[in-house]
């Protein structure tokens, strides 16, 4: 294809389309909608897109496209707010942002972290669009070069980030990651449908646990509970330090890191089937490994924010390539986007690049422009929104509990969501308390399913090739790409293990008696043992081999850790217990008493349904725990209820029902 004669006129057409006022208007509408929905963690892009889907039909294609692209572009932008300000990973794309973003917010540098994140997003988005414009012609062979062995190697590279995030004691990181993988295998096996750690008597577990629940439980609940106990503001000093202009300067100082991470984002985004779940971890790991002074990572290094945020917006652009060229969605939101395109009468596929190159370029550059508008808007807002971190946290917490419970319920719209949330939340609290790496757990969980799939599928195809001839099998498994990825993985693990001591959430350590840490490890060991035995009883080989192998490895890790606990004195790092000192140990409120408030909300929900429970919880909390007057408590409660009712109505969502609703038919929102 003659690039000059075909691509340049198409680029020109696309440029004229993109700057049309009508197009701009719809795109900005999409951006605003995306940003306002994005503040709810766990909802974000897919909810926003399905909100506009019914209007797509019969809409002018250019406007419809602009609206959808505007929405998609800001998904990885808007969720940064909750990641940085509240420590709640807004979506899988911004999990790694929490690691350093939230500590920065606690240091009073929320505005700095936010503006650095947004300008990185903006830059990543534009760079992604530029790369896409050029590689769209050669993307097809590039994508076809990534077979199952290559995808498996990328997944393993993602998992190798556990090494660097393992924390003070690598063995604990291994156990946390293994536990995460095992939790990820709960439910029906992806290949043969065998049940693992689930029975049809509890239909909820059959589908496995969803990322929303795990993310909220492992990150959000422990952080919210811990903050609530200390009864201060998120920013420890209650002040806002470095402002948003500092964030811009930080980004400029790290522009090469940002460029490289955006490159990682585009490449991983282009490969269908990987989704966005690895890219932020790979970018974060790269940032840590490639820099010299690493000891601030995990406690608020601005580079830990810039790296993942540069990559996740670039990834969104990369994800367009398989979506448009092959008609295969690169992620969940891309799947909905694909549906929307069909409703506009467009059919993505090989023909779209050849015949409708101008439309393809319109999409690519609308995305870039929407990034500029969205991220630009966010940079301007970040100074104001960062003030949230100076509010007394006790006044903020009930709203967060409301959002956490509501977001969790969206996962399966079953009361089981709330029960699962409490369980995972307690695990998260204990992992945090005993200094097990929560990122390692999360990486294990997120990559569990795809690791199992790719292992099984690549082995199956590899075996078939070997049956044909030895050369055919070797050719399949050993390609230049797999070898390079293997080298990268080994390097990443070696550097990771050497550096992991420097990457930690807590500087000073506190140890208490041996009893509590040993009890927790004992509980983990029992679960891992049961999961391993359960896997062994699965009859279908393909469905059992992965959880069984991981289970045995994790079990060995548990035993080694147990041995160390028996041999070492109580002051050893293996006995770290955050309840024995520091912020948590000296907090004015107790851990379980604080968690009981949240638990109370869920019990009330089980009885009266979410809305009535929320009203009771709000008034009770603001009056009794926050010590507000009755009048103020009522005002705060109404604000919270109004907010959630507005969003639920807009997004056409139901609330969790309770016992009351099974006896009486109540109108929405009490249903």
């Amino acid at each position: 294809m003659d690039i000059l004669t075909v691509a340049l006129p198409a680029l020109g057409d696309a440029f004229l389309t993109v700057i049309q006022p009508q197009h701009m208007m719809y795109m900005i509408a999409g951006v605003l909608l995306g940003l306002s929905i994005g503040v709810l963690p766990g909802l974000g892009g897919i909810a926003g897109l399905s909100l506009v889907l019914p209007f797509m039909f019969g809409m002018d294609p250019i406007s419809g496209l602009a609206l959808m692209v505007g929405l998609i572009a800001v998904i990885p932008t808007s969720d940064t707010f909750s990641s940085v300000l509240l420590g709640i990973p807004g979506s899988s794309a911004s999990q790694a942002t929490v690691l350093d973003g939230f500590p920065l917010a606690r240091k009073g540098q929320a505005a700095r972290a936010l503006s650095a994140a947004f300008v990185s997003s903006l830059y990543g988005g534009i760079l992604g669009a530029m790369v896409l414009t050029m590689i769209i012609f050669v993307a097809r062979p590039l994508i076809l070069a990534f077979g199952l062995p290559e995808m498996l190697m990328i997944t393993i590279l993602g998992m190798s980030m556990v090494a660097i995030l393992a924390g003070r004691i690598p063995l604990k990181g291994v156990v946390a990651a293994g536990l995460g993988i095992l939790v990820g295998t709960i439910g029906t096996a992806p290949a043969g449908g065998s049940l693992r750690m689930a029975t049809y008597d509890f239909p909820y577990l059959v589908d496995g646990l969803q990322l929303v629940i795990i993310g909220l439980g492992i990150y959000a609940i422990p952080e919210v509970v811990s903050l609530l106990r200390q009864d201060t503001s998120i920013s420890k000093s209650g002040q806002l330090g470095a402002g948003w202009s500092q964030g811009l300067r930080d980004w400029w100082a790290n522009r090469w890191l940002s460029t490289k991470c955006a490159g990682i984002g585009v490449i991983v985004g282009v490969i269908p089937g990987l989704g966005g779940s690895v890219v932020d971890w790979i970018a974060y790991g790269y940032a840590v490994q490639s820099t010299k002074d690493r000891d601030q990572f995990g406690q608020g290094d601005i580079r830990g924010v810039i790296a993942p945020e540069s990559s996740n917006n670039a990834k969104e652009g990369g994800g367009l390539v398989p979506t448009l060229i092959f008609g295969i969605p690169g992620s969940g939101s891309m799947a909905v986007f694909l549906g929307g395109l069909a409703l506009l009468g467009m059919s993505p596929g090989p023909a779209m690049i050849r015949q409708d190159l101008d439309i393809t370029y319109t999409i690519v550059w609308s995305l870039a422009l929407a990034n500029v508008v969205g991220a630009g808007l966010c940079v301007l807002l970040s100074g104001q929104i960062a003030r949230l971190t100076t509010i007394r946290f006790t006044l903020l917490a009930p709203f967060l509990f409301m959002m956490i419970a509501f977001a969790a319920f969206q996962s399966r719209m079953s009361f089981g969501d709330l029960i699962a949330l409490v369980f995972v939340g307690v695990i998260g609290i204990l992992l945090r308390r005993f200094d097990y790496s929560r990122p390692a757990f999360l990486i294990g969980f997120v990559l569990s399913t795809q690791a199992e799939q790719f292992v099984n599928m690549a082995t199956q195809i590899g075996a078939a090739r070997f049956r044909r001839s030895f050369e055919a099998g070797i050719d399949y498994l050993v390609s230049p790409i797999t070898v390079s990825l293997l080298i990268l993985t080994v390097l990443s693990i070696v550097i990771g293990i050497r550096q992991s001591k420097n990457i930690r959430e807590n500087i000073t350590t506190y140890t208490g008696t041996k009893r509590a840490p040993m009890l927790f490890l004992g509980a983990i060991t029992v679960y891992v043992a049961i999961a391993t035995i359960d896997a062994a009883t699965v009859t279908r080989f393909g469905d059992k081999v992965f959880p069984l192998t991981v289970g045995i490895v994790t079990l060995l890790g548990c035993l080694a850790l147990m041995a160390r606990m028996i041999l070492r004195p109580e002051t050893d790092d293996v006995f770290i217990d955050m309840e024995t000192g520091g912020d948590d140990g000296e907090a004015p409120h107790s851990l379980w008493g604080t968690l009981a408030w949240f638990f109370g909300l869920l019990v009330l929900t089980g009885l009266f349904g979410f809305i009535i429970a929320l009203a009771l919880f709000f008034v009770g909390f603001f009056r009794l725990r926050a010590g507000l007057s009755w009048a103020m408590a009522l005002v705060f409660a109404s604000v919270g209820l109004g907010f959630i009712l507005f969003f639920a109505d807009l997004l056409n969502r139901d609330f969790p029902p309770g016992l009351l609703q099974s006896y009486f038919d109540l109108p929405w929102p009490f249903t």
Partner: protein
Amino acid sequence: MTKINTPRVSAAILAASAAAFSFAAPVAAQDLAGKTVEFVIPFSESGGSARWANFFAPLLAEALPGNPTAIVGYRPGGGSTTGANWFQEQTTADGTLIFGTSGSTQFPYLLGDPRVRYEYRDWQPVLASGTGGVVYLPGDLGARFDGDMDDLQGEFFIFGSQGATTLDLVPLLAFKMLGLQVEPVFGIEGRGDGRLMFERGEANIDYQTSSAYLKNVVPLVEQGLAVPVMSWGILDDAGNVVRDPTFPDIPTFAEICEATAGCETSGVAWDAWRAFFVSGFAAQKLVYLPGNASADVVGMYSDAFAEILARPDFAALSESQLGVYPQMIGPAARVAHEAAITVSDEAREYVLSWLAEAYGVTMQ
């Protein structure tokens, strides 16, 4: 936002349809003005069923009396059994709730999946949409295909599959009946991934539904990278499998089977294949009202769908947005519904024991 709300036009169409269908009299008694119709599907926002439901929802809003707002609701989980179990408990009889199923909802019902707590016979069908499918091979293997599978018996095939109890059951059973040595690689996320495996050379046999085939495989066929070998065909009015009018030049599986030694278009294997083919393709997607909806409400929906199908622009709209799907309403929808949820005990046992034996997949 251009919300679809053109009362004048639809009132005119309504008057026209009232004149055209004498049984449309009860329509006047029903009016959904100011109400919201929820079109619930047991799937997530991504995927073919969401596209199908979002295509029909605004058309329904225009065609139903009173022009209600129509929204699509999603209740995914349990391979679509969660949503269907939920619908089984619903008693919204006034026409503000309809439910869309797919082959993935029918198959667990036919196979006796323990998660199934729903009973199709309790529900009232108002629309059935079908689709076809085409099987294709890579160019080199396709060159050895001469109208039967006798010459390809020694070949080892790899097939990317979503799972043995999904719609892929139909091709897997067809391959087995043809005597092909096909090893399915389970666990892909959608048929698009299967096509990608085929294009990467990891799989060397694949199939796509009609619209995906036209869009994404025909370009490969033109470059000589893929060769179509058979289509599933469609059911004629007498219930026979005949050539798909979308692919008049591609023989049906029935034709290939008859030409291939050891494959028969009668007997328990054929009965089983035919039952699952109807449920998974010929009558793949169905729209239901709850069992307690009155005849008036059912009539109102039948008329609304009749009106949609009678739109002069329907063929063009549905072709670009859904692909080529036959749509059945009224008595034809009830026949399709009956066929989609019926399998003889013998055929079910045959399929269950084959699934357990060949793939280790059981329904416990």
